[in-house]
């Protein structure tokens, strides 16, 4: 590109919930695409390759680091899901009133954390 001026990026703006939920949507989406799909492909490939390969997968995912990855992916999924559902509402032209917009910008990531905790509570208590 040439030397044309660029608009300022993240660093010049005062943080607010709308900005946070937008950045979280992109960060979690790209994290899911790059890491989550890798884990999904490994899981399915290991299943198809037999018990030995699957044991390697289970060993990696059952380790402390693996659990951090899995919990992180589930959090990223629920966060991306909630902000994505928020986008669907915005797409139909609703939810742009300042108070409503702010409310759901704050609520979406919080609901996502609750859903993540609930999911793991179900998995770990069975």
């Amino acid at each position: 590109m040439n030397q044309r001026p660029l608009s300022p990026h993240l660093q010049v703006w005062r943080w607010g919930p709308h900005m946070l939920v937008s950045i979280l949507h992109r960060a979690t989406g790209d994290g899911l695409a790059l890491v989550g799909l890798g884990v999904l492909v490994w899981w399915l490939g290991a299943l198809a390759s037999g018990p030995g390969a699957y044991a390697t997968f289970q060993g990696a995912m059952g380790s402390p680091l693996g659990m951090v990855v899995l919990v992180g992916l589930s959090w990223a999924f629920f966060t991306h899901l909630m902000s994505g559902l928020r986008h669907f509402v915005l797409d139909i032209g609703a939810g742009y009133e300042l108070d409503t917009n702010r409310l759901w910008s704050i609520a979406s990531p919080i609901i996502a954390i609750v859903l993540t905790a609930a999911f793991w509570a179900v998995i770990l208590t069975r």
Partner: protein
Amino acid sequence: MGNGTSIGRVRGLGAAHEGPHHWLLQRFTAIGNVVLMAWLLVSLAMLGDFGHANVVKWLVHPVSATAMILLVVSLFWHARLGLQVLIEDYVHEAGTKFAALAALNLATIGGGAFAIFSVAKLAFGGIA
């Protein structure tokens, strides 16, 4: 219509008419992801035993195998569209952008094909 700056060269031409296609596909695949991920998470929660034999027994059922293959298609398509936007936003040099998009296509189509083949192999009764 000017011919000096990049904005001057496109001003007055109207819309490119190819934006909505990408935007709509992202929404359609998002809907697929919501439905199929709900199926996957409920299935995982109900599975309980994550040992190889039990997971394979669940996955080779025709409904599970079909849903998993559809999930792989929907997820990889959605990820492909999302990462394309990431590349277009942050990679500005034309050659690098072309290479990044080409690599993205290889990775998503290759990964998706491998995942689908893995499910099909189990469903059609390979070893395991």
